[in-house]
């Protein structure tokens, strides 16, 4: 325990080093405990409670909330909540997928620019971040409004009936979600694309590869670290997103985020809200687990 060690040029004993490490770690640990672990535990606790007549918590521990989430209500079984949960997974999945598909060409385009203009292009990707999320979502209202060419064009092709806007609709939700999350995929991906070794692409071409093979063997393995960060940064928040679907999706395209917000807000059923949150968390972790397992062969996550 009192072994001498040299730590970055300083002579210390092991004991001293551990003490010092603990000193530096404590604030961060405390922070996490108070603001993440503790609320998490409370949430779990609350999810087993019930709702009183005035929306207060009633501490009668049971699985009622989870049963309700699974669809067993007073009027028999409904798929409503499960549909919302699955729809959330689906929307997050599609959003992430499309953001990835759009990010690759974008990143290649920017990476091929000379260094000076490269940062200008990156700024263009980052600038939307500076605007409030709600304002950004509202701006889609204007773009998709019935008076504007996009809606008129869509009406022309009989996609929507004349005089209607392009929102609220599933399409508008995806549009909003992708525009929201594109930078989250594009920026980490760019850091990988920028450092890519293009000779591997040339080697693949030299070895008669089709474009798909070039992507799978020369581009994807090299950009996977950035891509993974982007995918997780997008998928996890997209699962719980409620502003965009609330504004652009209307009541018909409710996602789990809206549902939770509703329980903690208008419905004043904190216990059920907590149970849905737990469901969402489990689902997110399960998805990430699947993603990790799928990527294990790549040896990178």
């Amino acid at each position, binding site marked *: 325990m009192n072994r001498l060690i040299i730590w970055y040029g300083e002579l210390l004993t092991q004991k001293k080093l551990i003490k010092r490490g603990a000193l530096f770690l404590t604030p961060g640990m405390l922070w996490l405990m108070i603001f993440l672990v503790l609320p998490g535990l409370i949430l779990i606790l609350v999810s087993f409670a019930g709702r009183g007549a005035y929306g207060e918590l009633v501490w009668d521990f049971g699985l009622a909330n989870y049963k309700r989430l699974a669809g067993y209500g007073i009027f028999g079984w409904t798929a409503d909540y499960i549909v919302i949960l699955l729809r959330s997974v689906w929307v997050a999945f599609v959003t992430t997928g499309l953001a990835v598909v759009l990010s690759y060409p974008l990143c290649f385009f920017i990476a091929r620019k000379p260094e000076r203009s490269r940062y200008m292009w990156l700024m263009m990707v980052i600038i939307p971040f500076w605007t409030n999320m709600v304002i950004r979502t509202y701006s889609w209202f204007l773009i998709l409004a019935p008076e504007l060419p996009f809606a008129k064009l869509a009406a022309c092709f009989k996609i929507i009936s004349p005089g209607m806007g392009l929102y609220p609709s599933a399409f508008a939700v995806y549009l909003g979600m992708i525009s929201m999350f594109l930078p989250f995929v594009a920026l980490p991906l760019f850091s990988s694309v920028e450092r890519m*070794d293009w000779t*591997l692409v040339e*080697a*693949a*071409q*030299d070895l008669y*590869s089709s474009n798909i093979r070039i992507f799978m*063997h020369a581009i994807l*393995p090299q950009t996977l670290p950035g891509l993974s960060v982007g995918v997780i940064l997008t998928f996890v928040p997209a699962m719980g997103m409620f502003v965009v679907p609330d504004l652009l999706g209307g009541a018909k395209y409710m996602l789990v985020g809206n549902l939770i917000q509703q329980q903690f807000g208008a419905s004043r059923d904190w216990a059920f809200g907590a149970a849905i949150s737990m469901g969402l968390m489990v689902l997110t972790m399960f998805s990430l687990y699947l993603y990790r397992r799928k990527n294990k062969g790549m040896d990178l996550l």
Partner: protein
Amino acid sequence: MITDNKGLSLQGINKTYGKVNAVKDVTLDINSGEFFTLLGPSGCGKTTLLRMIAGLELQDSGSVILEGQDITRLPAIKRQINTVFQSYALFPHLNIFENIAFGLRSRKVPEKEVQTRVQEALDMLELGTMPNRYPHQLSGGQNQRVALARALVNEPKVLLLDEPMSALDAKLRAQVQVELRRLQQKLGHTFILVTHDQDEALVVSDRIAVMKDGQIIQFGTPEEVYDLPKNRFIAQFLGAANLLAGRFHDGMFHTDIGPLELEGPPPWERGVIAIRPEWIKLSDTKPEKNGIKAKVSEIIYRGTNLDIWFEPGAIRVRSSTYKNFKIGDELWLDLAAEELVVLNE
């Protein structure tokens, strides 16, 4: 234009990057089954030329003709030419077997044939024990052999090697050069090597093209290029050379260290001649012709020989006899007329 050359023909190749003329009007005929080397200092355009042969770069003008067929407009994936890259460019996520099989799999060669051909390639390059390892687990020399196997397994009509030995240490490099030469002679494929290492070029090549500033300035067998360098650049770039400047008049070449007799009159009046350090003989007595009396100024021991520097004129002599030379010794240098190379500039 189509030639009847069975190998590879380059005709009037030009390439510019912005304002830089990387390759200027290069015309070359490379025979089938030949070990050909593009030799030159870095930035001379040799790699650009190689990349244009591979189809990884498109020339501004000129054509590439392989076995009488114009492949100028064919992209890399359609050319039966494979490359060993300088960094080897092995796929890090694939094991050695899959790396070597990559080109065969791209072309959807039947699995059975893939197995046998990859196994052959593994055996040929003595990689038989490590098909399941990954590139990061192998040494530089092994990775280089994998890169070679990965290209050769496709049976290319031309194999391009882009400074494949620059990452190896000197001893291994010397060994690999000999192995590469043997391999090429055994297979009889056309190899085109790009290098800046003149020793490497001399060891492996059937013919050498020396490049400078995007142009080929001399072209010939290693002996031709070494023994009869065309100009000052080649004389100094390939091996070592003593350069003597002077004027030719009255049948003699007059230099700072004395008049020398040449085999014939040079095409200029004022110019430079070269003589390799190992071609100068040392003697205690005055030679019949072209003897220069000089003083030893520096002795460098190099194991297989001595490099002795003489004053005046900073003449370097490479001697394999180990006499007890001392600094200050006076000796006769025998600069025989047949060893003096007239440079044309």
